[in-house]
């Protein structure tokens, strides 16, 4: 028997090479044409200490590493058990552990695991016999994965050669032998319960492998961004790291600012100077950036601010993902402000949404907030090839020669969008300001002008509410059971819907990638057939549910299904809930619970 979906978890001490084993596995999977997602987890130490990964490799698209492991690898029990619920094992889990840390007489140290699936392997001993040290343990494990699970042996070997090729022939040779020894051990000790991976179809073009934060940085450069400024903060710093390596090549620069305020301040300045500019942060940084976002709104300057969300409020839990900054993204402003808020759903989608964020910022001369989250930002994902040629790049509407003759920077136009002039443009000289201003840019305290300017700044964003392309609907469009999910939770919901559909349940899923302004019509159309359902999100308050209800008449049977971060949803529990709703609809047998017929 084979499998088309394999979830592996591994843990060990610092120096055991757990992370590089995970990287080797997902790299090989990408080369082998699989889909895959990998999340890493570390102990609280600044350096060293235990580490673990969860890696899911599959033939179909997958979006989550949640649920019970198919394969658990413990290089030692103490470290494995420290990750507790992050590495859950069950009756179906094959547990592979290093026999130098024997288990007790009961045979199984993990509740739920079965003795016949708990396999001792002299991992360290094999490594020592070949290389003289423990260091090659991870490559022995890779050999076991290749041997027992058919896990892309060529790809794993290529990875070892690439990684260790620089360290000299001797080191490389020893590690290749460690890998081979792992395979040989697997061949000599057949593992009855192991179900090898089915071979993936060869991809038409090479797949990509990266994490959400690097993808964001690359997308920014693709969109024409030449300026980044920000302040280090978990879990967003990798965006700055990536751009710090790459942006110079494109005539750009990064500035590591003295604080979050200066970070977005420099971005406001760069945008005023005519450049596409980005800042990235997480919750506490967003709190500090609020005033500058208001300035960019009233000065009508494009910029993109990425919030890689973590658990809040305040310092909260920096290392755990959450979706609790939606209200902040939408409402944290004084005055009457509408600023677009986008949310990406996968690492691949971060590319599209980052480009979209720049396009919306430029077209409407507004700050745009892109919500990512710790899961998306940090996880590695195998991404299908992206056709960059299919993306349009929008530039801000600059004043032409005729408009510069009697230039009005904040001219009230039909669209609400006013031609902008970059400093250095003759005739475009104007005063930008956070103070209310008239069409020329002169400060004013006139109530009438203030009202007209507020109206213009908000009206110009109305076309966004018609952007149906920023909403995805999955499943049966006329289903009576509907689910709404955003951000990284959308992937979990997609898998749940897939499960439910396999069980014959008619349901559908709406994934908004534009969260604000609320596209009332899109939600109303989705809810038209819905009699029961839920909005699922990783926050205590159920912020999207409540936001939608401000603008949309949500059917009575649609509820909030929300909980705090660090306790992620699983596809299984969401599909269970869909099934329960389906059963309830059927049992009730009331006409209003039947699926709509139109």
């Amino acid at each position: 028997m084979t499998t088309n979906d394999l979830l592996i978890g591994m843990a060990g001490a610092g120096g055991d090479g757990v992370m590089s084993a995970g990287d080797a596995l997902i790299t090989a999977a990408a080369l082998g044409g699989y889909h895959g997602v990998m999340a890493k987890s570390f102990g609280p130490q600044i350096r060293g200490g235990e580490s673990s990964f969860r890696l899911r490799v599959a033939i179909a698209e997958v979006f989550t590493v949640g649920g019970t492991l198919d394969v658990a690898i413990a290089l030692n029990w103490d470290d494995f058990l420290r990750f507790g619920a992050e590495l859950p094992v069950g009756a179906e889990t094959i547990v592979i552990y290093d026999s130098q840390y024997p288990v007790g007489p009961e045979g199984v140290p993990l509740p739920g695991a079965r003795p016949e699936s708990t396999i001792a392997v002299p991992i360290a001993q094999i490594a020592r016999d070949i290389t003289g040290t423990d260091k090659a343990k991870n490559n022995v494990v890779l050999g076991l994965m290749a041997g027992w699970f058919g896990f892309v042996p060529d790809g794993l070997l290529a990875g070892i050669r690439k990684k260790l090729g620089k360290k000299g022939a001797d080191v490389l040779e020893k590690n290749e032998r460690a890998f081979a020894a792992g395979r040989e051990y697997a061949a000599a000790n057949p593992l009855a319960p192991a179900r090898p991976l089915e071979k993936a179809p060869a991809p038409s073009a090479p797949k990509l492998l990266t994490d959400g934060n690097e993808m964001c940085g690359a997308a920014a450069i693709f969109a024409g961004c030449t300026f980044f400024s920000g302040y280090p903060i978990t879990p967003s710093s990798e965006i700055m790291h990536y751009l710090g390596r790459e942006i110079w090549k494109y005539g750009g620069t990064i500035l590591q600012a003295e604080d979050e305020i200066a970070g977005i301040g420099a971005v406001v300045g760069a945008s005023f100077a005519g450049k596409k500019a980005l800042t990235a942060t997480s919750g506490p940084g967003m709190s500090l950036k609020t005033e500058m976002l208001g300035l960019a709104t009233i000065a009508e300057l494009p910029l993109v601010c990425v919030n890689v969300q973590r658990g809040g409020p305040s310092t909260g839990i920096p290392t755990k993902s959450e979706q609790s900054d939606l209200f902040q993204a939408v409402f944290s402003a004084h005055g009457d402000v509408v600023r677009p808020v986008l949310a990406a759903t996968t690492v691949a989608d971060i590319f599209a949404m980052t480009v979209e964020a720049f396009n919306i910022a430029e077209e409407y001369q507004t700050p745009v907030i892109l919500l990512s989250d710790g899961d998306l930002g940090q996880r590695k994902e195998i991404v299908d090839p992206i056709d960059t040629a299919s993306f349009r790049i929008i530039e801000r509407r600059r004043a032409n020669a005729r408009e510069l003759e009697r230039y009005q920077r904040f001219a009230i136009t039909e669209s609400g969008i006013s031609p902008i002039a970059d400093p250095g443009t003759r005739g475009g000289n104007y005063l930008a300001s956070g103070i209310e201003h008239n069409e020329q840019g002169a400060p004013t305290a006139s109530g009438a002008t203030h009202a007209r300017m507020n109206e213009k700044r908000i009206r110009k964003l109305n076309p966004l509410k018609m952007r149906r392309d920023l909403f995805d609907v999955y499943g049966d469009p006329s289903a009576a059971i509907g689910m709404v999910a955003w951000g990284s939770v959308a992937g979990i919901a997609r898998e749940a819907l897939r499960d439910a559909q396999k069980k014959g349940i008619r349901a559908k899923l709406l994934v908004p990638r534009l969260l604000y302004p609320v596209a009332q019509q899109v939600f109303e159309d989705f809810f038209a057939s819905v009699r029961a359902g839920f909005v699922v999100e990783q926050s205590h308050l159920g912020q999207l549910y409540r936001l939608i209800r401000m603008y949309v008449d949500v059917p009575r049977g649609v509820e909030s299904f929300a909980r705090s971060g660090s306790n992620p949803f699983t596809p299984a529990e969401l599909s269970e809930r869909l099934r329960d709703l389906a059963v309830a609809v059927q049992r009730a047998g009331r006409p209003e619970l039947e699926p709509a017929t139109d």
Partner: protein
Amino acid sequence: MPNSTPEIFQAKDYKSELKPIWCPGCGDFGVVQAIYRALASVGRSPHEIAFVSGIGCSSRIPGYTTAYGFNTVHGRALPIAQGIKLANPDLLVLAAGGDGDGFSIGGGHVAHAIRRNIDLTYIVMDNQIYGLTKGQLSPTSPRGLVSASSVFGSLEDPVNPLSYVLGYGARFVAQGTPADMAGLATLIEEGIRFPGFAFINVQSPCITYGQPDAQLKAHKSMMQSLSALGHNSADRLRAFELAQSYGETLYTGVFYRDEHPGPTYDQAVRERQQTLSARAVPRDRILDAFIPR
């Protein structure tokens, strides 16, 4: 980029049509006049100048010029000005604001602007009081000052802007007063011409909430020219010593000028961009780097 055929500019070319909101007799009128003169001497066209300010009476100043102005939020002129200069190093960038803007709410940014040494000129109009909000203590108010927010007298010592910036390693530090308009214009011009971050503290009295004995008329008799005293502006330690008399003696002129200022941050950025541009893949191939091999 300077024009190929140099234009000749006069002070009036930099004066906008907006009428200042300042009280008659405010020192800031003189500051803006000095800025017009300095800019005319430097000779850059108004459209090549970005003038950034924070919030406060004095921060209205960009609007009174014909430059590209940006009247931002309280205390944040410097981060925004630095972003502008890095995004377009061809621009002449000025930043300005009051003592509250620069040494209270925005005080944290000054040190970093100094150490980065991005080529811009920062003019603080120091009046030792919050005028726009009607007369509260400012970071440079003298101890004991009775104000709207200190009816029994201030219990704090003031910030000394001069030793503050010298302490953080500022490479150009000067002080002037609109009471000496020609001198102030010259200082601002020198600051603009200085390759790097230049700081000019202007004693610009508040006619409404300031102390009656510290108005412009008094400045004329109080001020002491550093060059007349024979101060060597290359002597940083002596500059520190002289700066200690802030609040007592009104020295005007250049306290310190680094004779070997070295490259600015923005120059270094350009060099790095030029060096690394050869390594760029076309933008539409940027994702190729994520293909595992």
